């Protein structure tokens, strides 16, 4: 009779020997292996007696207080501020885009525009990249929240709807600008995102688990989140190396 190896006994203890009942059957029949297995169980059970201090329920808050000053607040106000800030920011972006677009057109028609004509398209593109990048990030947040919501219960999405509605109004100018500049890649993704956001904004504010599942399936089928990620990543690459995340960094 082939006895069980120590490795097999360890895997059996942790329930990792797969679906094969061989170890259990063998242990029933073989007193020698049973004795070894008993000794293994006793050792591992005694290891469990090693105590771990129980931290207070507010330990997480204590940890946060200690590290808070090392966690820089980045654009925090954007997410906690009132709605008028969004409106103001949207108007400011829109103004900037229109100005840049008009300036670009004007200088292209000028008789001696050499230096300016070369500089303007770049500035124009940069403004579009920054504005659209920010818009995509916020759209992604709304969609991820819906995609990750608990599907077991009905969900009130009125807050998400409001944000989706704001994003739809904001995107119109970006889409027009992208279309004017012939940036079809940006324009197509913006159209796709816009359609989903518009349906969310105009749909019911209470979603049943089935409706939520439909939203999730649609996002998956149309690959919206992936498209956003790819476009955002391309934009970061265009914005410059400082904007890129640290890739391949060992944890």
């Amino acid at each position, binding site marked *: 009779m082939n006895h069980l190896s120590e490795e097999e006994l360890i895997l059996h203890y942790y329930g990792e020997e797969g679906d094969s009942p061989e170890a259990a059957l063998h242990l029933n029949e073989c007193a020698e292996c049973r004795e070894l297995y008993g000794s293994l169980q006793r050792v591992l059970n005694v290891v469990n007696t090693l105590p771990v201090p129980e931290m207070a329920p507010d330990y997480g808050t204590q940890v946060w207080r200690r590290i808070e000053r090392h966690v820089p607040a980045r654009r925090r106000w954007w997410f906690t501020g009132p709605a008028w800030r969004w409106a103001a920011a949207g108007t400011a972006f829109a103004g900037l885009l229109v100005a840049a677009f008009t300036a670009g057109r004007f200088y292209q028609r000028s008789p001696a525009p050499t230096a300016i004509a070369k500089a303007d398209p770049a500035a124009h593109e940069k403004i579009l990249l920054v504005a659209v990048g920010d818009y995509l*990030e916020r759209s992604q*947040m709304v969609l991820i929240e819906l995609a990750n919501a608990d599907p077991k219960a009905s969900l009130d999405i009125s807050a998400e709807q409001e944000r989706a509605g704001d994003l739809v109004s904001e995107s119109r100018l970006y889409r027009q600008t992208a279309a004017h500049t012939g940036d079809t890649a940006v324009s197509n993704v913006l159209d796709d995102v816009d359609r989903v956001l518009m349906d969310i904004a105009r749909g019911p504010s209470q979603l049943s688990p089935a409706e939520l599942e439909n939203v999730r399936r649609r996002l998956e089928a149309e690959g919206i989140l992936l498209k956003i990620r790819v476009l955002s990543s391309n934009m970061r690459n265009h914005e410059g190396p400082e904007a890129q995340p640290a890739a391949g960094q060992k944890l």
Partner: protein
Amino acid sequence: MELTDAAIVSRARAGDTDAFRELVERHSRSLFRLAFRMTGNQQDAEDVVQESFLRAYRQLASFDDRASFGTWMYRIASNCSLDLVRARKRRNDRTVPADDDRAEDPMAQLPSTDPTPERIALSGEVRQRVADAMEELSPTERTAFVLRHFEGMRMEEVGRVLECQPGAAKHSVFRAVQKLRRALDPLVSVAR
């Protein structure tokens, strides 16, 4: 409605520090348990928890949305603990060992003669022996063992945390259990 980790992570990635605070409050206690079992020391474990969250914040951009935030944090905390344990081991290797009462005392080397397993299990001596046996494990063996034995991770998950193949993770667990058996078998045999 309580938001999922993934939803909170997406907010934190966008710069919402309140969202990151929520993640810290959710995961600190479980990370502390892991870190304590890895380091065997409360102060070290608390340092590991703090350092892990700071590393996580710096690396949020590289977090894959499809992954579990909890598993990702375990990986960071395990690596922080490994760094600390390795540094401590290097320090100890360089210093002359301090007088160890237990090493000097031949009686302390003998297994307890207490005939009641429950009492033995609860005794400070057994705990000390277990802690000592854990200290004898290499950092990788200790990590693999803690993740498999205490945290209940499957070998594949242990491999992911250790960034190695499941087979290599399995062998680290085997070596850890074998060492623990050698160190603790005499103790539990007497206790029977």
